[in-house]
């Protein structure tokens, strides 16, 4: 505040070394710009002036047209302490281009002229705003001032002594130097942060800082006074362009920092379009100003206020959804917004009262807002970075946990092939450890080499594990783009053993088939050997030694028959090797076997829709199916029998349904009732009912399945064995437990 007080001259005014006279000047506007001194003196001329009301500062605005000149009439205060020096009159408005001061002198007029960017007589330095010196004797005199500005005018006319003037001017320069320095530093920081973080809001802040620098340089006439002397037009273009860029960037910044796109998509679209309109206006304003059209320059305050209003509306809306974000925004931007309004309204309504303190407060206030917003944005980025870092480390932890709990193990090397990551038991078993070269591990395994940029997938190798014995491990590798490899070590022991088991079973089945065929042939040979040798022996006398030989042949034949029977029972996979399989898979196997047995005259169809199902002993499944199919074949006379198996959706959930249908004779109700009776109540064995339903019934109840028989006399019979699909898991698990015990 101290600086501000010095800058606006309060301190000096109290000491009478500088006096604000703006509020005490009579004024008149010459719209034509053609009046001379003669037009404003004399009774007629004097009457043109509006008397000073002591309240308003002179603010004449651009509303009067581009050629309008403003005349002020004021009295140089007598009570100004000059200490023998000069009286300095300043009009602290950097937008003034020319100023002439008329002082009555010897019946004529002594004219002091000031031109923007031109070093005045008896001075060494050009000033940013009109500065005219008068002799000490001018105190108490009435002077007339004519000045011209193409834009609005917020004149604050001061009369000071030299020391006060120089002090104030120096302080002002220091102030703007400070503001510009802060802005420049902010710009560098914000721009680098925006590039680093690719954050749109941060980028908008950087643009705001830069455009505000140019705005000050142009609007405060630094450019045409000191940097590019005389470049008044360029300065004006830069000033107006920078102003529009500030509007555009402000709205863009607000949209981004308030997350409008996520919170209010529709509003974001409308305001997003407004940003583009403002951007277009920026270009238009630059061109218009360069070509001498001032329309956009005059509209600029209105557009500025509209932008501020839009941002305020957006903030209020955001306040409901994201109070924290909105409050932070308000906290950061209240200084700039409030002083911005205070600065723009006098431009818009030129004759209204204004406070020069507020006008100049805009500069530090805007810089402060920018600083606060930059800090907020930086902390937001840091917060997001922290959240990101946290998320990344959580993710890494999660992946590590997955890797450690997975049955597969993972490894990775650096570009040189040295293992930098190895996790999981299979890696340890495979001999992969951090620090080892992957190539040496592979070579130890049998010479496979990893070629740079190529992957690897190799057949399982056998490794001894301290706890689990011999394990089959499969190692795969894929090249990493940056060099090196990463891959998986899978413990495939279970798969390998399962494959071996399946293969063994296949071999056994093949041997069984072959043995069945061989046994058939041998049995056919043995039959006459045994019977005819016995018969021949019996035809001989007891004393005949040849009878003994034939008895040996007979005994050998019997022994051979026993061996064949033993061979068959040891290799035949069905019916009773204790093997288990999902019912669907077992049925596929059984159906194939049955097909070979069913007479060509019968139509035997199978519709097996799934290989899934409860795990059951294959022999039991065979008994069930063989009995049902046999019954059906019995019932039909050259008719059709179908075996189907599918998963259906029942009221209680999924059901596996095994159905055997025939188009045979069917059963009447009495027979059906008897057929459905539990096996222990059926007829004594050996009487040959041949229905075998008792066996089916017994196995179905063992499986927890439901047996359902429907039959229509003369039409056919349908037998359905239903197993709940939910039972599959229970049955399966029980099965596994049983297996693991075995």
């Amino acid at each position: 505040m101290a600086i501000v007080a010095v800058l606006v001259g309060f301190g000096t005014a109290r000491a009478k070394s500088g006096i604000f006279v703006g509020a005490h000047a009579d004024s008149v506007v010459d719209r034509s710009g053609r009046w001379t001194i003669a037009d404003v003196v004399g009774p007629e001329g004097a009457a043109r002036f509006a008397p000073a009301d002591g309240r308003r500062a002179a603010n004449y605005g651009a509303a009067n047209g581009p050629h309008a000149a403003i005349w002020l009439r004021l009295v140089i205060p007598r009570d100004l302490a000059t200490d023998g020096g000069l009286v300095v009159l300043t009009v602290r408005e950097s937008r003034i281009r020319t100023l002439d001061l008329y002082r009555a002198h010897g019946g004529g007029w002594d004219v002091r002229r000031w031109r923007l960017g031109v070093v005045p007589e008896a001075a060494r330095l050009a000033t940013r705003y009109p500065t005219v010196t008068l002799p000490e004797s001018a105190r108490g005199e009435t002077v007339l001032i004519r000045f011209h500005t193409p834009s609005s005018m917020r004149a604050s006319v001061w009369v000071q002594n030299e020391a006060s003037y120089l002090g104030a001017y120096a302080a002002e320069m220091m102030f703007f130097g400070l503001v510009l320095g802060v802005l420049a530093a902010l710009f560098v920081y914000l721009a680098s942060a925006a590039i680093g973080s690719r954050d749109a809001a941060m980028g908008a802040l950087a643009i705001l800082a830069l455009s505000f620098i140019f705005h000050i340089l142009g609007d405060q006439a630094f450019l045409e006074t000191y940097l590019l002397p005389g470049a008044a037009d360029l300065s004006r273009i830069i000033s107006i362009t920078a102003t529009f860029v500030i509007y555009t960037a402000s709205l863009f910044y607000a949209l981004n920092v308030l997350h409008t796109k996520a919170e209010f998509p529709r509003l974001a679209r409308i305001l997003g379009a407004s940003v583009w309109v403002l951007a277009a206006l920026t270009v238009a304003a630059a061109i218009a100003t360069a070509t001498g059209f001032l329309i956009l320059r005059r509209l600029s305050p209105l557009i500025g206020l509209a932008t501020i209003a839009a941002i305020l509306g957006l903030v209020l809306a955001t306040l409901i959804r994201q109070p924290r974000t909105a409050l932070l925004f308000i906290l950061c931007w209240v200084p700039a917004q409030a002083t911005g309004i205070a600065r723009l309204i006098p431009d818009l309504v030129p004759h209204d009262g204004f406070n020069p303190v507020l006008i100049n407060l805009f500069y530090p206030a805007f810089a402060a807002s920018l600083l606060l917003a930059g800090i907020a944005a930086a902390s937001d980025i840091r917060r997001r970075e922290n959240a990101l870092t946290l998320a990344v480390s959580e993710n890494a932890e999660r992946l590590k946990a997955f890797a450690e709990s997975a049955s597969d193990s993972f490894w990775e090397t650096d570009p040189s092939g040295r293992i930098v990551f190895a996790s999981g038991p299979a890696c340890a078993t495979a001999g992969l450890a951090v620090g080892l070269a992957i190539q040496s591990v592979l070579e130890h395994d049998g010479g496979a080499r990893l070629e740079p940029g190529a992957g690897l997938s190799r057949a399982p190798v056998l490794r001894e594990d301290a706890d689990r014995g011999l394990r089959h491990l499969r190692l795969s590798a894929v090249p990493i783009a940056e060099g090196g490899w990463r891959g998986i070590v899978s413990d495939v022991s279970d798969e390998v053993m399962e494959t071996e088991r399946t293969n063994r079973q296949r071999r056994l089945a093949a041997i069984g088939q072959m043995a069945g065929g061989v046994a058939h042939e041998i049995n056919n040979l043995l039959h006459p050997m045994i019977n005819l040798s016995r018969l021949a022996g019996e035809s001989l006398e007891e004393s005949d030694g040849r009878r003994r030989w034939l008895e040996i042949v007979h005994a050998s034949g019997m022994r051979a028959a026993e061996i064949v029977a033993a061979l068959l029972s040891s290799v035949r996979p069905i019916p009773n090797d204790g093997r288990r399989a999902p019912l669907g898979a077992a049925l596929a196997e059984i159906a194939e076997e049955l097909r070979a047995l069913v007479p060509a005259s019968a139509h035997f169809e199978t519709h097996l829709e799934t290989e899934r199902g409860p795990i059951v002993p294959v022999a039991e499944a065979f008994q069930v199916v063989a009995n049902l199919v046999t019954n059906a074949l019995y019932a039909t006379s050259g008719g059709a029998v179908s075996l189907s198996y599918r998963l259906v959706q029942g009221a209680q959930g999924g059901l596996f349904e095994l159905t055997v249908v025939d188009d045979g004779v069917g059963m009447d109700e009495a027979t059906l009732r008897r057929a459905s009776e539990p096996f222990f109540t059926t007829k004594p064995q050996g009487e040959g009912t041949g229905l075998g339903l008792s066996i089916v019934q017994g196995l179905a109840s063992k499986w927890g399945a439901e047996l359902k028989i429907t039959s229509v006399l003369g039409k056919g019979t349908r037998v359905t064995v239903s197993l709940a699909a939910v039972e599959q898991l229970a049955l399966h698990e029980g099965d596994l437990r049983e297996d693991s015990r075995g």
Partner: protein
Amino acid sequence: MKILVVDDVPAVQVSISTALEAAGHAVSLASSGKQALSRIESEAFDVVVTDLWMPDGDGLRLIKQLRDQSGGPRVIAITGGGPKLSIELAGSLAEVWGAEHVLLKPFDDRRLVALVEGLTPRV
């Protein structure tokens, strides 16, 4: 009794027919299911003893067709097994389809004779 023995192995035919003839039965021979059917068409038999698994056709079909003939011969199945056929299933099928007995080769021919003689002709 008039008995038809059906088997594709001549030695088996000899063995069985010898035993049956020794017991006083009239035995005819056939070496395939097809041949057996044509014999049965022209001649009436009391009992047919047939192999289940023969290269040219299957005994099971023969049994089924005989079953469908009312007043036809009674059937005793004999089998030495087969590449796919399990003894238990073959027995069960033969029984279901109408064989009176199933004997697994090699069996004692005297047992066959006893079983044949235990059969009463169909009415």
